[in-house]
């Protein structure tokens, strides 16, 4: 299990490739990556976080996923700071003997990470900046687990 919180960009392809290559006894690897979308005239996004609590929260979420599903490994990388449209914000990867576990665990990680890890997004356009509001549907997504 590896949890990384950093402001620097990460190489999604290299991370995904290395993660998958390391798991020869796992039949299924699922990755998710979130990318800054350029719609709505977005100039950049800035992500604030809570150093210390962030790592703790991500480790808790990943640990819960490992208790719940048969997983060989979990990787979470999440950036903070400023990023431009097209840049990767974060990724998760799960390795499991079977695809159902790998998929479900990745979705669980994403659902909890969205609403329970202390990150706050702020969007900057030519008109100014605005904090991204949490969506009811993201909170509702937790009820399925």
């Amino acid at each position, binding site marked *: 299990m590896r949890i990384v919180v950093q402001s620097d960009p990460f190489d999604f392809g290299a991370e995904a490739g290395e993660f998958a290559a390391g798991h020869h006894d796992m039949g299924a690897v699922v990755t998710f990556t*979130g990318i800054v979308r350029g719609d709505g005239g977005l100039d950049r996004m800035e*992500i*604030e*976080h*809570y150093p*210390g*609590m962030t790592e*703790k*929260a991500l480790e808790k979420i990943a640990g819960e996923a490992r208790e719940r599903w048969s997983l060989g490994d979990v990787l979470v990388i*999440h950036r903070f700071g400023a990023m431009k449209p097209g840049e990767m*914000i*974060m990724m998760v990867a799960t390795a499991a003997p079977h695809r159902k576990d790998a998929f479900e665990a990745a979705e669980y990680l*994403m659902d909890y*990470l*969205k*609403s*329970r*890890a*202390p*990150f*706050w*997004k*702020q969007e900057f356009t030519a008109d100014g900046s605005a*904090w*991204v*509001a*949490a969506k009811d549907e993201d*909170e509702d997504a937790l009820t399925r687990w």
Partner: protein
Amino acid sequence: MDVLYFAWVRERIGLPKERVETSATTVMELVEELRNREERYQAAFADLTALRVAIDQDLADFDAPLAGAREVAFFPPMTGG
């Protein structure tokens, strides 16, 4: 204890962190103390349903006890991912 503010809570209060000497026994009592200080605190704590709180870096409720807490943080609902 250290009190931390993030995102628009930090912006409304105007600082990311402060040392607070308090005899509050719950988060709610601490909120009331802060609200009574200045208008910027009232603005930040106007609607508690729009706020989340963490005690020593674990999410908590507003009626949680503060006994032994070293760090309390207030912030809006998270928007990671």
